[in-house]
């Protein structure tokens, strides 16, 4: 089992492994390999859980999170809640290489990305729109809210805090189709 170099990734995303492996074989660094592999998944929208057009939020918007870490220097670049930019891992690497920070988030991360030359594009697709509209039709189920009114297990928002806070433990809705 011990053989170097090595690329390993979560889930059966063969195209990502292949892209990373080819990067290493062509003389790229381990950072290049990780960036290429993750970028390939973003472009190919691996399993719908990576890249644009997947996992719409309560408002129907797709946002992206990504991180890259250099094990030699312990430098890290990360972006969270990134809007309008498809290449999240590329922006994460730009955070690492073009700032002294570790994590940029939200709208400001998108502005940083645009300033660094990344294209601003709509991350919505017909598929993500359909997922969102089906969710609305299904009374916004599944739903991650709790201790709010109206009852989030039955109705859509807008929500207000519930006067009496319950201790009810809710199970998460993450599964093989919706995950981090």
């Amino acid at each position: 089992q011990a053989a170097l170099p090595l690329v390993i990734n979560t889930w059966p995303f063969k195209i990502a492994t292949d892209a990373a492996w080819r990067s290493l074989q062509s003389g790229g660094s381990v950072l290049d390999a990780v960036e290429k592999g993750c970028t390939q998944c973003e472009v190919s929208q691996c399993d719908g859980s990576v890249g644009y057009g997947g996992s719409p939020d309560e408002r129907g918007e797709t946002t992206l999170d990504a991180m890259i870490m250099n094990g030699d220097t312990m430098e890290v670049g990360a972006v969270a809640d990134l809007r309008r930019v498809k290449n999240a891992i590329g922006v994460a690497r730009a955070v690492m290489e073009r700032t002294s920070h570790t994590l940029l988030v939200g709208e400001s991360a998108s502005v940083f990305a645009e300033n660094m030359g990344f294209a601003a594009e709509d991350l919505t697709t017909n598929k993500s729109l359909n997922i969102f509209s089906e969710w609305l039709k299904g009374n916004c189920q599944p739903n991650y809210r709790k201790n709010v009114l109206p009852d989030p297990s039955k109705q859509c928002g807008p929500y207000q805090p519930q006067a009496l806070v319950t201790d009810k433990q809710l199970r998460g809705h993450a599964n093989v189709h919706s995950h981090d």
Partner: protein
Amino acid sequence: TIGMIAVDQGGHVAAGTSTNGLTHKVPGRVGDSPIVGAGAYADSQVGAAAATGDGDVMMRFLPSYLAVEQMRSGADPSAACKTAISRIKRHYADFFGAIICANTTGHYGAACNSVDGFSQFFYMISNSETDAPHLMSVDC
């Protein structure tokens, strides 16, 4: 979500993640993927780990950092991964998640928590022996 680790022949290690998160999340919600030590962690003195699953739960336990520290203490990658999963399971028996681990000598492993509809975790590896992507799995 994808979590990825690369190790070269010189033992240089990098790790990364990319995701669009949970479907129907509350706007502004961020999972474990961009959090150092949660979604992934790398240290070229030891190796790296990358996690996937329910980030709202997993990020509370920094499983990738824990797995790397386990490997630093001598655990093999599979055992390190199992420890990281077990630590979460103590508090959230039915959490959905998995983790991959690799050390600087090219050994690797994975672990996951069995829940309804998820009893086996699939992951990919490519190394100098396979010279191409190879599908691997681990029973949760």
